[in-house]
């Protein structure tokens, strides 16, 4: 047998250890496959050739269409052999070759014969092969046999038919759905695996029928499920039922006892599944959580890495919503920091960072420092992000956390890692005023030795905005000007712009900046020289100390008030002609991301870099969007924009959410709409708002959306007038109205005629919290004392019976819409009293501080003392009124 080529992977010198596939080559094996055509078949030889073919396929080798067809036809001849081992190989080979529809006919009759054979194992395998290669028409012919097979006495035959059903459900759902009676019977099978497969298939068949799933779960949770795998499925389906019934049933949570019972199952898989299901329950209480956390804690010290990983991964998630529930596990978690498995160690650290209290921060940072040096960048990024959140939670600790960030910034690392650190420092500078100056200096030091042009330019831009506002802007100039000497042209140009910003903002620095900018006129790069010239001319004067005019500041600092994407498109479409390009012709409407991209992960706060290209999310972007709409241009300054609230359920035809924009005398509802039906184009989309339950509001304007194609979100707006400066509240019901046009999916063209239609949306409410901005203070006591007691108002309230102290605290925080300070929103387990500190800015830009003291009065009754300090006593009274009427 000729084997001319030697496969590199298997090239070994060692005689004793040589591979049976040494020198295997596709062409030669295909030649060998001719033995399948021999009149006297040699089963052993044929099996060997099939093994070689499988080896090639398993190495990622592919056959051309002609090769595959040839092998397939040859393999079908092997059905003549009665050799059992060979027959088993033939089944695998046909599945691997997945022949085309016209070739399938050749084997259909052989397989049908096997499927009705008396030998069970022929039946099972023939079912699997047929279902793999079949199409709809053939399936209707064999459906009768498959239904019989599902309830076959032999568990292997039943499982083969059931797993086939799971696959076929994707391609031929209407046929498989007809089998539900048989599948239902199989769920009761005594064979563990049959029950597992049947349960999976039955649930898939009925997944859209809520009642049927509920019934399935109710009956199975009472009986005994044999295999742990099936038990895990049942737990998953149960939590789905709990999720869906949460809104309709009052009192004890249904099925909780079943989940809790599973925590005592003998299989670890089931215990873990139940523990995770409990931790993921909506609004889970600490009483419900406790048993689940206890078993997860035991898993933390398991000798099996898989269990440790599973436990710490789940606890990490719990820590996001119930940090106090996880604190009991902190000691076990700390020992995992040195776990061999880096995934486990990273998860342990990030969990500890989420659950740690202010006093443990320093100790934790020490442990992490040792750990950081021996993990990969991707894990480091996770840790950096956790440290950022920790710092925002405990602003008083900014010094040690910022130091940590600056230390790791100096160490080796790739771009993504460095970017994560820089982004974190930027966010801390923005959110913690006290951290600003040290943070800026850390960034300055970083650009002295930064290998990433992108980061250097972004930091220089940021310095240009923040640097001039500091107490001593002077000290940053040296770092910036060094860049002009030492860096590439891109960074040099950015440095020139930053210098100009300092010159414009700090009049005393202007003469010296002029000197520096003049030096840049001799740079060897066009862009750098052009910028220097431009700034020298716009800043005006001859370099003496003069005040920079507002126009120049606007030119240097003002941002382009049109979306860059739109500008880019307009410029691309512009054809050079006599008529010059008119920037006013660029559309200002922000086109939001298509649906597919929106699903991509990325809810991280943005630090440096371009703002997200998607829908405007920050107040700035909203403000720009609203001011570009003439109807709303005279509403004045935007006070607050709420987070988007969904007005439709998930996976409906049209997805709509609303953002409430609060102005002094107006409220604008921005409805973000997405059309999820490819065959429809919506036009003239408006929301008809009924404000009969919002007496103080009067509709003044509505801006329809001209066109809403599939998968390309758009916005429509409705504006209301309300009494100026008054925090009016009310309920609004909404109806989406539009003209719907059919779209031909093949051409993408819409029909000319459309039909008017409506779609009911959920209600929305304007509440007191909408008039409050969440603005934190880093040192509450200082802020409280400096505010003084002049406008203080104190009163006591009974909150009645509550589920827990924590629940009461959260309810009051949500009611007021204020920022909890110093981590006081977290209530320790089993505590009977708690103090929570809140800070915010009320409409009219009035600073407000709130001190809430809670106590348990009797077993469940919660009493609260509310002390409010603000700059205006009317506002202090208003806060009390919100609580009294809430």
């Amino acid at each position: 047998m000729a084997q001319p080529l030697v496969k590199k992977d298997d090239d070994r010198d060692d005689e004793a250890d040589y591979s049976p596939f040494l020198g295997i080559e596709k062409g030669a094996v295909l030649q060998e496959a001719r033995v399948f055509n021999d009149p006297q078949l040699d089963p052993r030889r044929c099996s060997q050739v099939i093994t070689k073919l499988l080896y090639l396929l398993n190495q990622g080798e592919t056959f051309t269409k002609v090769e595959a067809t040839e092998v397939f036809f040859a393999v079908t001849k092997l059905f003549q052999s009665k050799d059992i081992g060979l027959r088993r190989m033939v089944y695998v080979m046909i599945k691997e070759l997945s022949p085309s529809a016209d070739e399938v006919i050749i084997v259909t009759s052989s397989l049908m014969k096997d499927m009705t054979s008396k030998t069970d194992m022929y039946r099972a395998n023939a079912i699997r092969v047929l279902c793999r290669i079949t199409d709809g028409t053939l399936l209707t012919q064999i459906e009768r046999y498959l239904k019989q097979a599902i309830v076959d006495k032999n568990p292997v035959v039943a499982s083969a038919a059931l797993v086939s059903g799971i696959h076929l459900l994707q391609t031929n759902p209407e046929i498989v759905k007809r089998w539900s009676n048989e599948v239902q019977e199989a769920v009761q099978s005594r064979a563990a695996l049959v029950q597992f497969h049947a349960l999976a298939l039955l649930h898939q068949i009925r997944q859209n029928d809520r009642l049927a799933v509920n019934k399935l779960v109710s009956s199975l949770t009472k009986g005994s499920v044999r295999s742990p795998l099936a038990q895990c499925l049942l737990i998953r389906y149960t939590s789905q039922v709990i999720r869906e019934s949460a809104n309709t049933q009052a009192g004890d949570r249904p099925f909780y006892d079943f989940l809790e019972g599973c925590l005592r199952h003998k299989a670890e898989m089931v215990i873990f599944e139940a523990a995770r299901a409990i931790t993921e329950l909506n609004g889970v209480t600490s009483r419900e959580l406790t048993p689940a956390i206890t078993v997860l804690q035991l898993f933390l010290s398991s000798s099996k890495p898989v269990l440790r990983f599973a436990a710490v991964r789940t606890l990490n998630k719990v820590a996001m919503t119930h940090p106090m529930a996880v604190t009991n596990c902190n000691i076990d978690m700390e020992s995992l920091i040195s776990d061999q498995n880096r995934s486990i160690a990273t998860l342990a650290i990030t969990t500890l960072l989420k659950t740690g209290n202010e006093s443990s921060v320093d100790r934790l940072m020490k442990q992490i420092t040792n750990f950081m040096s021996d993990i990969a960048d991707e894990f480091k990024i996770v840790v950096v992000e956790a440290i950022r959140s920790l710092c925002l939670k405990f602003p008083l600790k900014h010094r040690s956390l910022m130091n940590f960030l600056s230390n790791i910034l100096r160490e080796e690392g790739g771009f993504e890692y460095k970017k994560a650190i820089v982004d974190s420092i930027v966010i801390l500078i923005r959110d913690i005023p006290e951290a600003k100056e040290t943070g800026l200096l850390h960034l300055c030091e970083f650009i002295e030795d930064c290998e990433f042009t992108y980061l250097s330019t972004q930091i220089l831009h940021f310095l240009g905005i923040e640097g001039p506002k500091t107490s001593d802007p002077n000290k940053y100039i040296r770092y910036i000007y060094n860049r002009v000497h030492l860096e590439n042209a891109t960074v040099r140009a950015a440095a020139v712009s930053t210098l100009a910003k300092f010159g414009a903002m700090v009049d005393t620095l202007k003469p010296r900046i002029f000197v520096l900018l003049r030096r840049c006129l001799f740079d060897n790069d066009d862009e750098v020289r052009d910028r220097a010239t431009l700034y020298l001319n716009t800043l005006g004067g001859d370099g003496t100390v003069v005040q920079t005019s507002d126009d120049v500041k606007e030119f240097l600092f003002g941002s382009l008030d049109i979306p860059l994407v739109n500008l880019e498109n307009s410029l691309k479409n512009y054809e050079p002609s006599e008529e010059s390009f008119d920037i006013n012709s660029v559309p200002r409407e922000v086109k939001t991301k298509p649906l597919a991209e929106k699903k991509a992960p990325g809810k991280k706060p943005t630090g440096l870099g371009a703002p997200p290209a998607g829908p405007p999310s920050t107040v700035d972007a909203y403000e720009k969007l609203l001011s570009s709409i003439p109807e709303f241009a005279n509403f004045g300054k935007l006070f607050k924009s709420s987070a988007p609230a969904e007005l439709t359920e998930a996976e409906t035809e049209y997805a709509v959410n609303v953002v409430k924009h609060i102005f002094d005398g107006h409220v604008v509802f921005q409805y973000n709409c997405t059309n999820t039906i490819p065959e429809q184009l919506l036009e003239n989309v408006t929301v008809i708002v009924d404000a009969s339950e919002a007496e103080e509001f009067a509709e003044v304007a509505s801006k329809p959306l001209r066109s809403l194609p599939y998968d390309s979100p758009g916005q429509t707006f409705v504006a209301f007038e309300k009494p100026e400066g008054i925090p009016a509240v009310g309920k609004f019901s909404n109806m989406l109205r539009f003209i719907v046009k059919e779209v031909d999916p093949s051409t993408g063209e819409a029909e000319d005629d459309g039909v008017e239609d409506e779609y009911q949306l959920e209600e929305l409410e304007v509440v007191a919290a909408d008039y409050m901005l969440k603005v934190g203070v880093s040192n509450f006591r200082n802020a409280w004392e400096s505010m003084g007691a002049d406008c203080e108002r104190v009163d006591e309230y009974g909150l009645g019976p509550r589920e827990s102290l924590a629940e009461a605290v959260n309810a009051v925080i949500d009611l007021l819409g204020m920022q909890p300070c110093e981590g006081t929103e977290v209530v320790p387990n089993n505590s009977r009293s708690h103090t929570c500190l809140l800070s915010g800015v009320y409409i009219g830009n009035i600073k407000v501080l709130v001190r809430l003291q809670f106590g348990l009065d009797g077993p469940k009754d919660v009493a609260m003392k509310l002390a409010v300090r603000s700059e205006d006593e009317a506002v202090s009274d208003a806060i009390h009124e919100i609580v009294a009427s809430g």
Partner: protein
Amino acid sequence: MILAVLFANSEGNILVERFNGVPTEERLHWRSFLVKLGAENLKGVKNEELLVASHKSVYIVYTVLGDVSVYVVGKDEYDELALAEVIFVITSAVKDVCGKLPTERLFLDKYGRICLTLDEIIWQGYLENTDKDRIRRLVRLKPPTEF
């Protein structure tokens, strides 16, 4: 869905790779990712001691069995614990086929039977059989004993 099952020798050369629902263009990426993961972590690991990792929303459980390393990749219902079950079935069945912990040579000698074994364990991304004795009978086209 069980996205991939992969066997490699001690030098990181692929012995078996089977993907389910993974686009062809991503397979190479997975192959090198897994081999790298093994090279970094499997040194000194005891036979059949399970290691675990996650990459985005995908879980990976892997281990050493004699001279070969085994990787299973899954998502959704096939999370780390379900995959631990899958890899346990795979390793015990492979040991059963080889009669002991496999050397690379032994693994390749039994290649055909191992392919059949895997075919019984995982079918297009779903776990089908879990018991090694039953699997041994099934690859010989014999009905399970309990039947």
